[in-house]
């Protein structure tokens, strides 16, 4: 059984790992063989060197942007969940919000941050956090609203046969049923939160986050450092992904089996 588990683990982990290594090797080889100048595209080995040497720079910038994304992700998820539950009883609200959510997703809503920047002091991170919160809110809201509308018919008939109050039905059946949808929303919103936090920095304000550093250094001669910042962003993104999956694993244990199938 243990060998079988090891084998299935290897089957999941190995292919992407091999592909990733091959990609880096190909990149490195191409840059060396074609003699690409380091200020056009740096070698992966140089990026790694920059990442290690200037780790404290990358770290500081990652914390700034990561915090903005995290605060927005948590607040947006909470608001999305709570407001979806509160408005669930009123069909018109979800009918109103769904097209709104799609519109918000379609327009480059991140420009809102430009407006918000004028309302807060120059060194404030609040506009960026609000921006992330808004983006996350709609993703989570739409998922939770969907989950609340999809109930198991047998479970609902059972609750009715118990003469359960709407509140009991919500608490004991509909909310647990909605949790997998909520986490689908959070998992979708996690990388989005980071991207929005990054892009928000392009609209002015303190230039100490990953977004500002990337745009600043990628245009300079020190391209390797620019890519090191990108690597920092990628690591934060992976942490977000892993974190939201772990949270789902802990909160929705009954879904583990369904997902492993």
């Amino acid at each position: 059984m243990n060998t079988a588990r090891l084998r299935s683990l290897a089957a999941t982990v190995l292919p992407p790992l091999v592909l990733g290594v091959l990609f880096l090797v190909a990149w490195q080889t191409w840059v060396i063989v074609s003699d690409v100048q380091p200020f056009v595209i740096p070698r992966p080995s140089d990026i790694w060197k920059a990442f290690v040497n200037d780790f404290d720079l990358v770290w500081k910038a990652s914390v700034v942007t990561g915090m903005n994304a995290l605060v927005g992700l948590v607040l947006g998820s909470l608001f999305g969940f709570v407001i979806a539950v509160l408005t669930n009883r009123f069909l018109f609200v979800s009918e109103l919000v769904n097209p709104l959510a799609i519109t918000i997703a379609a327009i480059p809503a991140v420009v809102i941050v430009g407006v918000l920047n004028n309302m807060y002091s120059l060194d404030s991170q609040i506009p960026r956090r609000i921006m992330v919160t808004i983006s996350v809110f709609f993703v989570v809201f739409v998922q939770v609203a969907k989950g609340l509308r999809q109930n198991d018919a047998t479970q609902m008939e059972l609750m009715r046969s118990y003469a359960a109050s709407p509140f009991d039905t919500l608490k004991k059946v509909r909310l647990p049923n909605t949790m997998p949808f909520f986490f689908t929303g959070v998992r979708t919103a996690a990388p989005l939160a980071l991207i929005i936090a990054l892009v928000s920095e392009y609209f002015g304000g303190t230039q100490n986050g990953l977004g500002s550093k990337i745009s600043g250094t990628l245009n300079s001669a020190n391209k390797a450092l620019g890519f090191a910042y990108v690597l920092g962003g990628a690591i934060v993104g992976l942490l977000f992904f892993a974190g939201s999956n772990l949270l789902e694993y802990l909160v929705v244990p009954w879904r583990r089996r369904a997902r492993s199938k």
Partner: protein
Amino acid sequence: MENPMTETSQAAVVVRDVEKIFNQGKPNQVDALVGIDLDIQPGEFISLIGPSGCGKSTLLRLVADLLEPTTGTITIHGKSAHQARVDQDYGMAFQQSGLFEWRSVERNIELPLELKGWDKAKRRERAQEMLELVKLPEFAKHMPWQLSGGMQQRIAIARALASHPKLLLMDEPFGALDEMTREHMQAELLRICAAAGTTVVFVTHSIPEAVYLADRVVVMSPRPGRITDIVDVGLGRDRNELTREAGDFFARVTEVREALRGIELADQARGIEDR
């Protein structure tokens, strides 16, 4: 065998002149049930059988007050069906076990008691009692997905019986099980209900199942849904695996089958007329 008390006490279920019409007055109007009269005695086991669309599940849901009749009345132990539901006077089981995936087996069984406001110690004790009744006492802490389909269905029955209801309503509860499990579950159900004196209304579309379980088989026909025949099974209460091979059993199976075939022939004739 028969408790003399039950003969003098009121009927378990009385269905009087019930009609159920969906989408009344609209183009998609469906006459699900018309002119339904049925009296069920306490402790009696009734099977409802008929082709799909005959309204047997609708009738069960009317008794359960999950639907309201268009006209007519339904009384359960002298109360209105609505009051009986509010008082949780009946237990119910469906084709899907409807177990709550996030609750352990024992907490699933406790849910109806929880909603009745029982305290935790009392609930736990009753859950254990029910698990012993369905012969799964060691599975209290398991989660539903760790059980086979047959075991899940037994937990659903344990849950339906948790508050010791006098009436059990079942909608094809064994429909999704394999034949062997199914026969085993039928025997178990008879044992459990006989021990507690529970009245059962059991919807099925399996003729042998209907006959093996029931004191009376109510045969229904579609378009509009109505009761066409009631077959007295009269195989006594002590039924076992030998019952399934007995001549009387086959005679009743044939009787029910012919009653159903009558519906089918009438239906075909009507089908031709319609064209």
